[in-house]
Each structure stands twice: as structure tokens, then as C-alpha cells.
């Protein structure tokens, strides 16, 4: 497992070059989004008529919040990059993890926090969230997560739905989550693009967007699309689902070829731009990561064959309730598995959920990760992992806390292709760090402090300083820092 993760980190070091597919089996089609064309996107205003690889028309405006150089001392550090450091120290400086170890050299003016009896972990990364596109309160007027009008809506972008004043964001932050992937819902075969955000207060979603993060494409297997469209022109069956994806990929491949040719030659009028096919073409170029909702093992195996058929890669299966049944296949294919600890039984395709899923996946060498899909669950992902660890133990798979922390941090970072920036306590990484009141896998432990890029954004001891969204004001009574 450790080797696999290290390898991933090595690969992603190259992924910073724009438009290069981060994973080996680059599609049979060539990756054409080269650096020359990338410049168009970054600099040319009004490029809206062109279908450009890695276009970034709604760019991140996120800037780290003001931070103070901070040292946490005498603390147990679960690094997600190796064995724990007991009684160690960590230095947060200029938004980065500047040093970590038994001791660190801290400047005289650093804020010093005594972490005796406490734990430090990397900020938690939730690869499956709908906060912002399904905000609270859950009224129809705010229900912006599922474009349930036709089964292929790769043309929608989750960020255009995300409401930064969703009161669920500060609660998610208080649960230790520092980065999340906000996905469209699962009604459609192709649900649309995801938004990768840092969990920070902002007037705009652009102010939350993780700089440089690749987009994800939400796809969905199984019951949901066929239930939603069964009486609305289909798909009505699982075979209909597969036919729907394949039809779209065929069109996307034609589109990609047409555009890549034009971008190379720049001769004559550009082809017509199609938002739907553009997103799919970007998947085929390796510029967008497929994040696919898929419960059943047999369906995941079908989707894997389809990805070979069209030459793209599934980055991670989400809600992989039956992922443990094909752990060997997922390991071989290098596909991540994002799962719950013990959600199940709520529909037929969730019926074979087992708590040992994460442990079984890890044992087989799969990049396994916890995810929430839920604004309540996202606040207690450490508790979910604790249940999964115990379930592993009960069937003889001992997962240490040092490995289990990876389910919450470095593995989801990999699923977003951000593992070179976040997901572990290592020098040079973003200072996205959580201080826990005790062992994060105990039911009695609370989040004490959360830093994002070195800025202290949640402090349990400072009730008045805690982020309250516009909606919270006047609607949600101020709890006054009750502990």
C-alpha cells in the first residue's frame, strides 16, 4: 500500500505540466492540450467561441487567509506519509508546512501551541460532497445539485450551483475537512463537472476554488439514472445506461479529433463548440478526472471495460459499496475506491454493504478512501474510519492508525490529483492541518483547531471568531461556544 502511494506521488510530480495526463495508460488518442494552446486559455479574453483544452474561464481567485507562523509542540502527528511522530512538533510558516519532526526550529515570534495529549493530522479531504449545490435548508429553491432534464448533462459545472453561504460549509470545516470535491448529483449518466474547493469563507465560489485543481466529471451507474429516466425516454435498464455512455463517448471522440486538428492547424473557421462534448473530450485528453458513482461490482467491471474501449481512465469509483468484491481488479487497474464505512440497505444496489470494505480494499492494494456524500457525515469522517478499522480487525485485517489516516487524507488527495500539494504532513505541502483534542478515532475527540494554508480558520476556543455564513445570521441561534 505504501509503495503504491509513493508511486502515485512520483507520477503526480509530473502532472503539474499543464494538460499532461497524470496516469500512464494515456488514451489511444494523443494528448494534444499542449502548453502553447494552454496560453490561449490563460491570457486570451473572449475565447468563448473556442473549445480549448484546460480552459479555465471561471478561474480561482482564492488567496490564503492571513496567517501567523505557528508551532504545535508535544503533539502526536499522524503524517499519512509514514509512521506517527509521538511528542513531535510541526511548524506552519507562509502557508506551508515548513518543518515537522521530533523538534523544529521555530522563529522567536511564532505562536506556540502546546499539543500535549492531542493529535495533529493533515486536513481531511472529502472527495464526495454536495455542500453548496444541495445547501441547507433543503428547500426546493436551493436544490441545485441534479440537472434532471436529460441523462447526459456533462455540460453543467457544479461550481455554477455552489452557494458559498451554505451554512453547511463552516460545519464541515469544524469537522476537520479542508478540501472537498463538490459533485453534481447522480441522476444522470453524465452529471457534470465537479468543483474542488478549500473550505473557506468567501463571497464567491471562485474564492474557494482550489488553484490549479483539475476538474472531475461525475458519472453514475445503476439505479438512479434508470429510475429517473425510465419513463422519460430512457435509459430504463442497466444495459440502457451502458448504451447511453457509449453513444456519448463516440460523439466525444469525434469532437475531440475535430477540435484537436483545428487547434493544431488553426485553418479556417473553428468547429462549432459543444459544452457537453467539450467536457467529455477533456476526459479523453486526460485533462478531467472521471469520478464515477457505482455501487455494484459487476457494473464497475463493465465500466472498466468501457474505459478501455474509449481510452480513458476512471480515477475513482464513488459509493463503491461492492468494491471489496473486485478489490483485485481495482488494484490492477489503479482505480481508487471512495466508500462509506457502513451506509447500506437504503436501496437494492446498496444491499451488500459491509463495514470491512475499506480494510479489504487496502489489503488488496487499492487506493481506498472514505467519503461522505452527506453534510452530516462529512463532519465525522474520522469516526467513519474508526468503524472501518474495527471491522477490519474483526476479520483479521489490522489497519494501523498510521495507515487509516490515509483513507482520510493522502488517498483522497490522489483521487483529485492533488497529492503533491495536500494530504500529508510533509515539508513543503500546504499547511492544511487539524489539531484534535485527542485520538481522532475516539468518539470523545473533538476538533480543536483547523488551519488552511497556515491560516487558523476554526478555533473551538474562539466561538465569536468562528465562521458564520450569511444564512446563519439571524436564523441560526448563536451557540455561544458551548462545549
Amino acid at each position, binding site marked *: 500500500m505504501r509503495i503504491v502511494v509513493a508511486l502515485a506521488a512520483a507520477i503526480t510530480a509530473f502532472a503539474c505540466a499543464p494538460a499532461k495526463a497524470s496516469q500512464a495508460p494515456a488514451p489511444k488518442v494523443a494528448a494534444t492540450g499542449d502548453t502553447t494552446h494552454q496560453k490561449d486559455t490563460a491570457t486570451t479574453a473572449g475565447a468563448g467561441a473556442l473549445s480549448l483544452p484546460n480552459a479555465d474561464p471561471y478561474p480561482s481567485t482564492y488567496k490564503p487567509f492571513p496567517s501567523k507562523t505557528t508551532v504545535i509542540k508535544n503533539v502526536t502527528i499522524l503524517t499519512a506519509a509514514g509512521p506517527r511522530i509521538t511528542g513531535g512538533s510541526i511548524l506552519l510558516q507562509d502557508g506551508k508546512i515548513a518543518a515537522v519532526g521530533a523538534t523544529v526550529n521555530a522563529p522567536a515570534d511564532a505562536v506556540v501551541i502546546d499539543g500535549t495529549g492531542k493529535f495533529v493530522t493533515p486536513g481531511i479531504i472529502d472527495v464526495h460532497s454536495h455542500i453548496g449545490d444541495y445547501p*441547507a435548508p433543503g*428547500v426546493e429553491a436551493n436544490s441545485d445539485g441534479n440537472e434532471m432534464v436529460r441523462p447526459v448533462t456533462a455540460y453543467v459545472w457544479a461550481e455554477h450551483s455552489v452557494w458559498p453561504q451554505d451554512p453547511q460549509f463552516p460545519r464541515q470545516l469544524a469537522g476537520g475537512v479542508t478540501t472537498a470535491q463538490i459533485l453534481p448529483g447522480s441522476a444522470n449518466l453524465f452529471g457534470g463537472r465537479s468543483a474542488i474547493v478549500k473550505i473557506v469563507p468567501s463571497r464567491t465560489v471562485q474564492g474557494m476554488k482550489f488553484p490549479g485543481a483539475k476538474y472531475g466529471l461525475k458519472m453514475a451507474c445503476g439505479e438512479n439514472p434508470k429510475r429517473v429516466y425510465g419513463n422519460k425516454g430512457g435509459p430504463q435498464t442497466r444495459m440502457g445506461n451502458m448504451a447511453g455512455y457509449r453513444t456519448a463517448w463516440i460523439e466525444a471522440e469525434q469532437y475531440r479529433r475535430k477540435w484537436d486538428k483545428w487547434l493544431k492547424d488553426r485553418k479556417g473557421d473553428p468547429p462549432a463548440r459543444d459544452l457537453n462534448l467539450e467536457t467529455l473530450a477533456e476526459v479523453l485528453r486526460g485533462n478531467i478526472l472521471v469520478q464515477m458513482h457505482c455501487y455494484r461490482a459487476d457494473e464497475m467491471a463493465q465500466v472498466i471495460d468501457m474505459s478501455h474501449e474509449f481510452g480513458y481512465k476512471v480515477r475513482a469509483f464513488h459509493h463503491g459499496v461492492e468494491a471489496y*468484491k473486485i478489490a483485485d481488479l481495482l488494484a490492477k487497474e489503479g482505480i481508487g475506491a471512495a466508500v462509506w464505512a457502513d451506509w447500506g440497505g*437504503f*436501496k437494492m444496489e446498496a444491499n451488500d454493504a459491509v463495514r470491512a470494505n475499506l480494510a479489504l480494499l487496502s489489503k488488496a492494494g487499492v487506493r481506498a478512501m472514505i467519503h461522505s456524500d452527506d453534510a*452530516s457525515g462529512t463532519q465525522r469522517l474520522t469516526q467513519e474510519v*474508526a468503524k472501518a478499522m474495527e471491522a477490519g480487525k474483526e476479520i483479521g485485517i489490522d489497519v494501523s492508525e498510521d495507515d487509516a489516516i490515509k483513507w482520510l487524507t493522502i488517498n483522497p488527495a490522489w483521487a483529485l490529483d492533488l497529492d503533491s500539494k495536500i494530504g500529508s504532513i510533509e515539508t513543503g505541502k500546504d499547511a492544511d492541518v487539524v489539531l484534535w483534542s485527542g485520538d481522532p478515532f475516539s468518539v470523545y475527540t473533538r476538533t480543536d483547531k483547523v488551519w488552511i494554508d497556515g491560516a487558523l480558520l476554526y478555533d473551538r476556543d474562539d466561538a465569536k471568531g468562528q465562521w458564520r455564513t450569511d444564512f446563519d445570521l439571524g436564523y441560526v441561534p448563536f451557540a455561544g461556544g458551548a462545549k
Partner: protein
Amino acid sequence: MNPMTRQVRQVLVLAAACAFALPAGAQTIAITGGKVYPVSGPAIENGTVLIRDGKIVAVGKDVAIPSDAQKVDATGKWVTPGLVNSYTNLGFGDVGFSAGPRELRAKRGDGIASGFASWEGYNTQSVHIASTREGGVTSVLASPAGGLISGQAAIVDLTGAIALPDVLVKAPATMVSQIDDNQSAEVGAKGELFGRLRDLIEDTKAYEHRKADYERAQTRDFVASRRDLEAMIPVVEGREPLTIEAEQASDIEGALSLAKEYGLKIVIAGGTEAWKVADKLAAAKVPVLAGAMNNIPLSFSMLGARQENLAMLRKAGVEVGIIGNAGGGDEELFNVRNVRFEAGNAVAYGMSWDDALRGITLGPAEIYGVSDKIGSLRPGREANVVIWSGDPFEFSTRAEAVFIRGKKLDAPSRQDMLENRYKTLPPNYGSPE
């Protein structure tokens, strides 16, 4: 098969059944050496729980252990009553959505289903019973849902017996209603909703006093059917609790007023904003079933959601039952077993550990009038006992032995079977038994 052989077979089957039944009935079990939490009294270090004929006969430090007792060594373990989850849908269908039978909701056009005896659709063999037991839960309130008056709920033991009478602890334990969701209640507004409740209560009274006239069709029309009115009589007389699902503080106030006006014995379930009216609830001796994992203003009636709710209610002197309320995790069906973690979270948010254990044992047992049977380790109670590897609220703790009515139940759950099958790949498709 010739008739003789068949007869012999039947005799053999009978004999086998008796051989199975007799020792279970007469068995004496002594659980020794554990840290015993009777809940009805202080914890006992190195205590003994003595079980005979399915009942608890003695609990203490110096319990004489009969020579014929089967001894269970619980040294280093924690021993508690079987947990009670007092708000579940267990047994009313195994799959939540788009599949399989659902026995949860009466199909009514008017939202009043007081005559609906939900336990008549309870599946004693639900696939989730074994996994729920593995979480140390031995009894649940199996509750109907939806409408204004959802129906009547029963408390059942998760014994695994097929026959309903062999699992029922109390039926009905409560009438269940919900006043949070107007649409589900088939009303347009709260004022209409409370009006309908008043009509139902007053018609029940009228019906009760004029049954003979009713049979001769000499009464005015009542708002509910005879079956519904009959079922409401013990509720209106204050003998059977009326559980009211309500979230917003003003709705809870409304429920309290109604209860006072008619002398009803009510229980608030959900109770998101109950902390705002904790003192009134305590003064009216109205208990609350609530969880400790929700802090999201999920709707305009739940704006005050906070995880300290249970602790604040308890501090004010309100009796509480702890139920799952995280939302999304299906805590009323697949994860009924997780109620012990809800209790742990309640502790993290200010409740005392002892109160939290009470909230998933004796608390709900008292709320629903079954504390003479379940919820504590006291002589005379059913021997629903759990031996834990440690603190039952911790994730790293497992229920090592679960006794229900004196019988150790350790049948693997379907989830165990799946894990076992797929532990090595490719799987073995034979039967694990």
C-alpha cells in the same frame, strides 16, 4: 415415503425441538468478573450477573453461583443491559428504497391511521436483526411513519424467534404521530393540523361515551373510523403515550399545550429545538427522543439544530432516549446498531457518560413503560445482557456476547457472510454453513 416413516420423522423432529427447548428454558448462566453497569444502580467492579430461565435473578459483587450454572468469564470486560433503540423502522422492510416490501406507512388519504397496528407487518426474520444485535442492541421500538397519526408502535426483542408473540415486549407501546411536516400530515398549515388533532381527540371521547349510539348510527359523523377511534381511547385517557415527532420549538410548545389541555401523556421525538424549551418539557415531565449528531439547519423548522441538545435537556431534568439523527446513514434501519455511537457523541457534546448509557437503556424503557422488563440489570428483568470488550461507546469496542432472554445469540449477520466470502478472491461460492 411410507406413512410409518413420516410418523417416525415427526416424532424425531418433535423430540429434537424439545431437546433444544428444554435446556434453554432451564439454563442458569453466571457472567462473572466484569465491570457491571446495571444502570438502575451504580457500577459494580468485578460483578456477577446471574441468569435463570431467561430472567436476571441476581446482580452484585457477592452473588452465590449455583453449581449447575454455566459460567461466562467477563474479566476485564464491561457488562451492560442490552441496548434499546427507541426509534427505528426495523422489521418493516429490509431495503429502504425502490425494492421489496415496506410495512411502514398506512395508505390513507387523510393522514389519520391510529388504528394501524404496525407490528402486524413486522418481520421477525429481517436480515438486519443479526447485524443490529452485533451492535449490542437487543430491543427496539419499531415505529410506523408518515401522516399525521402514523399508527401504533411496538417494542420488540431481537430474539430471532419467528412468531410475533415470542418477540413482542409491548404492543402497542405508543401511538406515533408527526407534526413537523404539513404535507405528510395532509394539512396545509399548523393551525389546521392542531385543529385536526383536537377533532380526533374530541371525537374519540364522544365515541367512547356513545358507542351504543354509534353502532346504531345515531351519532354525528366522526373524523375517523371506528378502528381508529378505538385505538385512540387509551391515548386520550392518558394511559398510552402519544409520541409526537416535532422539531421546531414552537411546534413542541404546541404539543405541550395540547397535552395539557387534554391530559395526554406525550413523548417528543426528533426534538431538534427541544433545548429551547427544556425547562417547560421538564416541568411537564415530557420526555424527548433525540440524537447527538445533527447540527445542520436542514429545514426552517430545524434552524436551532445543535449537538448539545441532549446534554441541555438532561441538565434541565428531562428524561431522554437517545436515537440516531445524523441523517443519511439510515440510522433507523441498516444502522440501528449505531445508537451506541450516538450516545458517545452525546458525551462528547456535554452529556454525562452515565446519562448517555441510560439514554439507550433504562431511559427509553421507562418512557414506554417497559422498565419492568428491559433496560436494566435488575432481578426479574429479561436477561438482555451484553458483554463488551471495553467502553461500549467507542468504535474500537465490540459486543463480544449478546444474550436476549437468557439465550446467547451469535448467528452471523449477512454482512459477516459477505465479508467472509470475499476475504479471499476469487470468492468461494459455496455455503459458509
